[in-house]
């Protein structure tokens, strides 16, 4: 791999690495507080590498939830990655299995967000995207370990630490506001996920809301494109 590929991949990852430093420390603190050792925190970050799932595991363990139900919740929480993985797949065509395995393992919400916008732009390559993923992955693993070490030394408020993740998701959402239809899809998703969460009291609400809202956005875009064609006739 060429040096400038590594450099540009790293440069794209820098803002995320910086936020992972803060978020990872927060997550490490939450996990240590829930009873995970620093070694377990490192293993979880290296093998699982899913910020939201790791925060979730931390709070569920703290509530005394059973291992199978935590794994099931993580599974539901991660269903969203099917959609991300599917939508970014067109940019990593014809890559070997080992590439896809590594790319898949290091595909986080944030790496996806940044790579997806880069791919939509001009000259982003699959190799640069993988480098971005790997830098983010390393930053996350190291930061959570750092958080575990900090957590072992001081007492820190985990409610505030948990909010770091939400702030990040808000920003990722805003970065996807690329058209009026996309903004409407976001608003629809907000309303539906609140509604379904109240009714179903289950995380699956998020998946249902996401799928429905994406269809609303798609339909709106299609309709306005058709109207545009008619207006030109």
């Amino acid at each position, binding site marked *: 791999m060429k040096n400038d590929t590594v450099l540009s991949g790293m440069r794209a990852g820098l803002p995320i690495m910086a*936020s992972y430093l803060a978020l990872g420390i927060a997550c490490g603190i939450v996990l240590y507080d829930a009873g995970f*050792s620093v*070694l*377990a925190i490192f*293993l979880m970050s290296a*093998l*699982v*590498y*899913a910020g*939201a*799932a790791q925060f979730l595991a931390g709070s569920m363990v703290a509530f005394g939830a059973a*291992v199978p139900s*935590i*794994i099931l919740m*993580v*599974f539901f929480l991660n269903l*969203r990655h099917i*959609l*991300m*993985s599917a*939508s970014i*797949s067109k940019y*990593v*065509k014809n890559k070997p299995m080992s590439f*896809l395995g590594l790319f*898949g393992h290091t595909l986080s*919400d944030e790496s996806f*967000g940044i790579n*997806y916008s880069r791919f939509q732009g001009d000259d982003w390559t699959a190799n640069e995207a993988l480098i971005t993923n790997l830098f983010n992955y390393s930053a996350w693993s190291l930061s959570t370990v750092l958080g575990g070490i900090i957590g072992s030394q001081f007492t820190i408020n985990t*409610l505030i*630490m948990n*909010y*770091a993740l*939400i*702030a*990040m*998701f*808000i*920003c*990722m*959402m*805003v*970065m996807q*506001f690329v058209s009026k239809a*996309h*903004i409407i899809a*976001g608003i629809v*998703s*907000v309303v*539906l*996920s609140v509604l379904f*969460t109240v009714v179903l009291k289950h995380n699956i*609400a*998020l998946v249902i809301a*996401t799928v429905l*809202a*994406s*269809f609303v*956005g798609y339909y709106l875009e*299609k309709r306005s494109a058709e109207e545009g064609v008619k207006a030109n006739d």
Partner: protein
Amino acid sequence: MTSDALILITGMAVVTFIPRFFPLLLLSKKEISPSFSRWMSFIPVSIFAALVASDVFFWEGSFSLQPIQNIKLIPSVLVLFVAYKTKSLLWSMITGVLAMALLYIFL
């Protein structure tokens, strides 16, 4: 490390890897129809909106729109504004955590 922690981490690793890897593997070999990929362009915004809403509008498990009780509401409005202006993950996070910390201390 306890065996429970190991089982938990292994299980989490499996259910995280599957949805990230298999769509990549199965779809990267084929052409995707334009309307399918147009539909998928609405997935990320919907996912993030759903993740945010299901957290921000709830306080201790129930729906709450009272900014004094649910102290996540005001920081979220601020973060939305900062994110829109700066498009920066880092600034959004700093704004959010600072606002949360201030509200937590003063309320």
